[in-house]
């Protein structure tokens, strides 16, 4: 099994009430932490995009990715195209390939724009057509209802659902898996006993991505949970990293 973590972050959180007890400030610290627990790489966002700004944040992440040995890939932060701050939708795929940032993300809470799907429909239309994954993360200014609205408008979108709710929440997230075939779910908060086994039985291993949300959460928990899951070794390998690499490959190659 080769582990790739689908939800990592680093950087400086400016709201001290939201500081994790054990923050990770630099991409170097992140790479060292991954090496300590045997994770080869993953998908990372920089808090700078939310704290400093989307222009400097995207650029800084692209530069940082070139400085580490770990096999890390970036999440590119979107804002509405109407302000012309980031490349236009048709220019974006080339930028993502150039900067090794094959996944889009958004944080309407920090960047202050409406969560109605029409506001970023031009970017999402390109993402849907080009199979560029979009991270829909309830830790980043979206409710689960917002995520549903985006998916309902773009039902074939290649999306990664990140749902921050540590309690067993199948009644909330399973409708996404039932309704949207190109949506995958990252597993950082799916820690229900025997829950992964049932999800794989129902929806197939291809729908799930190992993720920890380091540094807020511990990678070790999800690693041992997956290692000991009563599913096939092939399914474990897919969830541990192969599914994520396949999604990334669609964009970068």
């Amino acid at each position, binding site marked *: 099994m080769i*582990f790739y973590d689908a939800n990592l972050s680093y950087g400086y959180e400016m709201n001290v009430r939201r500081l*994790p*007890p*054990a923050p990770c400030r630099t991409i170097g610290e992140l790479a060292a932490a991954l*090496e*300590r*627990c*045997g994770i080869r790489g993953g998908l990372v966002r920089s808090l700078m995009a939310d704290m400093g700004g989307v222009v400097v944040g995207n650029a800084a992440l692209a530069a940082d990715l070139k400085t580490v040995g770990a096999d890390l890939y970036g999440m590119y932060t979107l804002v509405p195209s109407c302000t012309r701050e980031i490349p236009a939708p048709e220019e974006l795929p080339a930028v993502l390939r150039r900067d090794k940032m094959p996944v889009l993300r958004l944080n309407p809470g920090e960047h202050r724009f409406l969560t109605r799907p029409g506001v970023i429909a031009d970017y999402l239309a390109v993402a849907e057509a080009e199979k560029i994954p979009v991270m829909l993360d309830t830790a980043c200014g979206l409710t689960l209802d917002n995520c549903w609205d985006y998916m309902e408008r773009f039902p074939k979108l290649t999306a990664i659902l990140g749902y921050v709710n*540590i*309690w*067993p*929440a*199948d*009644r909330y997230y399973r409708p996404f898996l039932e309704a949207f075939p190109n949506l995958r779910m990252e597993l950082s*908060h799916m*820690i*229900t*006993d*025997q*829950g*992964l*086994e*049932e999800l794989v039985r129902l929806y197939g291993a291809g729908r799930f991505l190992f993720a920890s949300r*380091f*540094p*807020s*959460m*511990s*990678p*070790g*928990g*999800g*690693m*041992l*949970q997956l*290692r*000991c*899951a009563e599913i096939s070794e092939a399914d474990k390998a897919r969830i541990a990293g192969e599914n994520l690499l396949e999604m990334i490959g669609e964009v970068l190659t």
Partner: protein
Amino acid sequence: MSYLNRDSALAQAFWEKGYVEDCPIYDFHGHMHENNGCYLPAGEPEQMLHTMRRAHIDSFIFCSHLALHSAEIGERANLEPVRRYGKPLRAYLGVKSYDIDWERDRAALEENRDVYVGCKFLQDYFGVPLEDPRHTPYWEYLNEHRMLALMHTWGGSAADGADNVRRIAETYPDVRLICGHSIHGDWGSAVKLAQDFPNLYLELTAVMDERGVLERFVREAGSEKIVFGTDLPWFSTFYYVGAILEADITDEDRRNIFYRNGRRLLGETT
């Protein structure tokens, strides 16, 4: 390539099989059966015992959701599984603040001493503080018999927050108090309570999803004051074991948390 934690021999051993023979697990925070608020894929006793066998859980102390939430069923939901399956199961009697009947519950405790190790308090759910006079006979009984009290505790709660726990700890020094969820979010108060009261322990359910808190507990309260718990069937035992193995603490700390403190609390030889 080493996984989980290259600095821990115990982590490497757990990675091989998911358990280590000489490092059993004592889980002090369990439930069982259906729950109104969520779907649990493996909440029935046989399903839970399957997990316990795979994770080498030597002791599992629980209070059924039905014993807590459904007065119509009550303690049957605790007694029947323990009577049927025995070890590793033992139970907490559920203190139902909405259906208090001390004589009924005292009789259950007296008649089933091999089943019950103490009582479970779930005060946030019931909207009644831990120290409410309706609970006094329970606390006095637990104190007299030096039994366990597993309290759901949550930061900022007016029913089971740090102040409520402190009042109980000051009044009942012989109850073995387990702070379920460790006053969740109010980590500084949890540490202070563990420092101030020798009979009070911190428990890790829902703590392990916030990286760094365990390290603080070990540093400031000591690993001798922490017991393992999972809310099983809510949370994966393997997830919690893995998170502890990956934490920046020593293997001796991990052994204290996994079983040594539990054995001491239950009066077993170490």
